[in-house]
């Protein structure tokens, strides 16, 4: 791949910004999927052999853990995107 030109055009910057955004989305939504559909549903049975406090782990992910992770995911996304906006000068 050729190295990026010293003064990338505005279209290149937009494309690069969008790519990085999509990469964040894929990573964050994978975590979203794994904690709810993975730990809370598909893997709930095997995870129930482990415990967090007095709760079975799969059950806990379905009724507590996944929700905590959802909240954290949005705040991480906000932080990543604010940083990305700054990097490309697209902030407001």
């Amino acid at each position: 791949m050729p190295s990026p030109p010293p003064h990338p055009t505005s279209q290149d910057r937009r494309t690069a910004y969008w790519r990085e955004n999509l990469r964040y989305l894929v990573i964050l939504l994978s975590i979203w999927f794994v904690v709810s559909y993975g730990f809370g549903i598909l893997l709930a049975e095997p995870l129930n052999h482990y415990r967090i406090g007095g709760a079975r782990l799969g059950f806990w992910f379905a009724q507590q853990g996944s929700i905590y992770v959802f909240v954290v995911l949005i705040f991480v996304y906000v932080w990543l995107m604010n940083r990305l906006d700054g990097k490309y000068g697209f902030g407001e």
Partner: protein
Amino acid sequence: MTVQTWTFLIVGLTFALYIGIAIWARAGSTHEFYVAGGGVHPVANGLATAADWMSAASFLSMAGIISFAGYDGSVYLMGWTGGYVLLALLLAPYLRKFGKFTVPDFIGDRYYSNTARSVAVVCAIVISFTYVAGQMRGVGLVFSRFLEVEIDTGVYIGTAIVFFYAIMGGMKGITYTQVAQYCVLIFAFMVPAIFISLNMTGHFLPQLGFIGEVSDGSGVALLDKLDGLHRDLGFAEYTSGQKSTIDVFAITFALMVGTAGLPHVIVRFFTVPKVKDARISAGWALLFIAILYTTAPAIAAFARTNLIDTIHNQPYAEIPEWFTKWETTGLIAWTDKNADGIITYGPGLASNPGVTNELYIDNDIMVLANPEIAGLPNWVIALVAAGGLAAALSTAAGLLLVISTALSRDLMKMQIKPSMSDREELWWARGGAAGAVVVAAYFGIHPPGFVAATVALAFGLAAASFFPAIVLGIFDKRMNREGAVAGMVVGILLMFGYMAVYKLGWFVAEVPPASSWWFGISPEGFGTVAMLVNFAVSLVVSRLTTPPPQAVQDIVEDIRIPRGAGEAHLH
């Protein structure tokens, strides 16, 4: 003071507060009426979104439903929170950058088509009406249970209050009353929960009590005790599921995607000043929602354990006072089948002579009777009434605004009479809100028999129509009018047809059994299938037809970059 006096006092005070806010936050323009002038602070918007989202069902019924469903109740917990991740990452920032007032606005402009706009208007109205009928009914129920008035009278009082602040203040009035309503409802939900958690487990936080040990010195974990009680009584274990994995998966997914596609939730993100604010306010909203949604399963487990402990195998003569009180409302009922004077609880319907169970318990009692079961003071009981009303009113107002906006803007201004002035449009908006309140009140008094089915339908429709159309409109620049309209129409018809046959039993002799469900997926989860079909149809049709015009492709480029949202909304 008696419960009755306390209830009048607290409910009266909160209503006065809502009306005061409505007078203070009058809307002077359509910009203020539709999106509160676009100047709402992100934290305030988070609070308002949380109140908007959490309905009478979240407040009153959800803990009870989970209490009876155990693990299977998780679909609501994950489904009604996980959608906010989709909303924050895939929709809110881009729709805010787009900078108009409604979801049909986006669909109509992005797909350069008034057909698409009209399909979106119909969906928005159907979804909102099915939802709002339940809220008005909820208001009536809370009134009738706590103030001992007729349900209909309760609906009238609730209608009058919503009428006043939704019509005067529009989105501006609704936003700030919702902030107040969130505070009332979360306080009312948490106080009894904390008391009960302390009582049963010694933990202050219900979330910790949930995974803690019962405080009778036995060292047994609460959930283990509950599983044990369930086994003893012949129920399936509380922490294991009964539904098939694929159905749990599909229902959770349909609820998440439906949440992200509900117009009254989406529109809240048009009210903040910047794209950045739309992102963070989704985070605040979910945080405020999560406080209730992580407490509800704890209440469910506490209440279930408590109920079995205090009632099963007890002589009726020695039953606590709250039991007889709630018996009179019909929310709990006991028939002494074996005539031994002792209450026997177990699986199965008590009305069925073949089962030993003698008890009927309504879902709602878990939250309503909790303060009494835990022996809390009268003012806490009154607080629960005020909280239930706050939850129902805030959601009703948000939905009514969507309906009024769909009529005044998406239909009148954008299609029938584009030349009308802002002032005239504002009168249409107020008139639309007034008409919608009256229709909602009618549904509240004469609830359609299929209310339970229609709530699932609202989520299914949102999942099958709006979600794919909006996501593709942002992430697929090649998506065109033909693709989006075809996808929405096929998605809605499929969802509606499946619901009609498999839930309501239309067109067939009787409602088909679960064994005949497609892929083993219930009507509640079918939104997932309809959504996938919508995506597939949209993608195929769009690739076979002409690409969208350059101007539309430029819109897509533009909404992907945050800069410049401030100017956009003044268009």
